[in-house]
């Protein structure tokens, strides 16, 4: 996977897309007028790197440094202002807001999620139990038969990671998705990330837990204010990052 000098700019329109009355909606559509107050946030300013198959790369940096923005662009969910991102296959992004189909039960989410990823019904039936066991949400009662909106954020994140991890991915992007899980689950998911790497996938991990970055990634990229501050072996970069955070 090659990321070539990408810039990402968020454009924020003052008014936003409120739900107004039908007449105001009509006038907005007809006049095509947007609020004159247009703010731009240059979130990513010229990032380049190359990632190889079988690599797990940590992505660190303070809040607002552009980690999530970069991963969204890699997943194709944000357009780049300039530059290009080349990947082998479709990257999958696991973000913090673990919503999938909130009004449906966990069981339905597992089945539909797997079908959406392209599995057949027979495959889903075969993997279903494994996914639920991996997520561990059944440990404290029969939660798979409850709607996902009743889950704690940690449980939702666990179930979603388990669903996504049931398939091998060419590129898997994990954006703080494991942070809300408990230690036992983090341990299991780190093992799973190592397996995914063995299947020649590339894994990106955003985490504020330096230990889990050290345990799973052998290379780390440090982003600060939209530019790469450092890119190299995890040990060196994380140590440098920790010094930097202490000095602030």
């Amino acid at each position, binding site marked *: 996977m090659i990321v070539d*000098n990408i810039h990402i700019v968020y454009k924020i329109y003052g008014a936003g897309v409120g*739900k107004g009355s039908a007449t105001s909606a009509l006038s907005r559509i007809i006049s095509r007028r947007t609020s004159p107050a247009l703010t731009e946030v240059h979130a990513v300013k010229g990032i380049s790197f190359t990632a190889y198959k079988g690599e797990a790369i940590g992505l660190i940096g303070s809040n607002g440094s552009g980690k999530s923005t970069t991963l969204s662009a890699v997943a194709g*969910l944000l357009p780049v202002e300039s530059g290009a991102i080349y990947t082998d296959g*479709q990257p999958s992004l696991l973000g913090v807001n673990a919503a999938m189909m909130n009004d449906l039960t966990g069981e339905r989410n597992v089945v*539909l999620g797997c079908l959406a990823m392209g599995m*057949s019904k027979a495959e889903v039936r075969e993997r279903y139990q494994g996914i639920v066991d991996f997520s561990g949400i059944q440990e404290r009662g029969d939660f798979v038969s409850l709607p996902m909106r009743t889950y704690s954020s940690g449980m939702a994140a666990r179930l979603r990671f388990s669903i996504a991890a049931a398939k091998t991915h060419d590129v898997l992007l994990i954006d703080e998705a494991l942070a809300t899980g408990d230690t036992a689950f983090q341990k299991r998911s780190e093992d799973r990330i190592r397996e995914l790497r063995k299947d020649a996938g590339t894994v990106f991990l955003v985490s504020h837990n330096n230990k889990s970055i050290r345990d799973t990634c052998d290379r780390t990229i440090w982003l600060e204010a939209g530019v*790469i501050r450092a890119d*190299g072996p995890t040990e060196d970069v994380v140590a440098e990052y920790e010094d930097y955070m202490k000095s602030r």
Partner: protein
Amino acid sequence: MSTVFEQRVTGFAGTDPDEGLSPAELAAKHGLSISGKRPSLPKYTRQLWSRRQFITSFATARLIAMYTAAKLGQVWQVMTPLLNAGVYYLVFGLLLGQSRGIPDFIAYLCCGVFVFQFTQSAILSGTRAITDNLGLIRALHFPRACLPIAFTVIQLQQLIFSMGVLGVIMLVSGQPLTMHWLLIIPILVLQSVFNTGLALIMARIGAKTTDMAQLMPFVIRTWMYLSGVFWAVSTFTAKAPHWAAVMLNLNPALIFNDLMRYALMTTVPESILPAHVWLITAGWALLFGLGGYVFFWLSEEEYGRG
């Protein structure tokens, strides 16, 4: 202070043959493609076909969730079209006297309401298909056309329910059960294709223009008044200029309504249908089905962007 350097995974390439290539050339050499790029139409269609089980399961799950939330549950599936028909009967049949000249007005009205309801709900749910499912779209990768199609499948499942009610209404109001009822099948097939296309078009528009969801009910109501749901359009076209009459008679929603009435009611003569009606209907279905699919696909990479 920065430690930027190239790192190579062991076993990838000993001496570097990629030296001196630009990133774009390097990407081409290793068969990488631009991330998030829209697949070609045939490839997209293949991906969509491989998700057919997702589409049907998604539709079923949604339908169940929709009705378990309401206390009366599935009863609403029958109640909603009945209540609609009741309101229109009161206003147009009793108060405004539109029923004059239409034999078996209740059956006529219910048929129109139920058939138009199918198109109407396909449009409304299509408009929200992308915006209401951003979580799913951002979480997993699948051809986005699955969503508007699945929502049309939901509407079709509901319609089949309403058709059962309609059949009872027909028999109760004295219409005989004839071989003509078999025409329901081709009519519903064509209307489903037409509606799927409409839902795909509205899904793309609704994803870009969030205001559309507010505006659609008004557009739909206007269309309904033009589609002869509760009055016979022929009373108007008889007096209208020729070109206007032709335009009104080509209205696909009107054609679906009248076709269904012709199929179910012996009191509705073939003469209310325009010439070459099946050809026209198939034309509408193909035009919207294929056109809507391509129109939706053209924007595939942009759904889910905030």
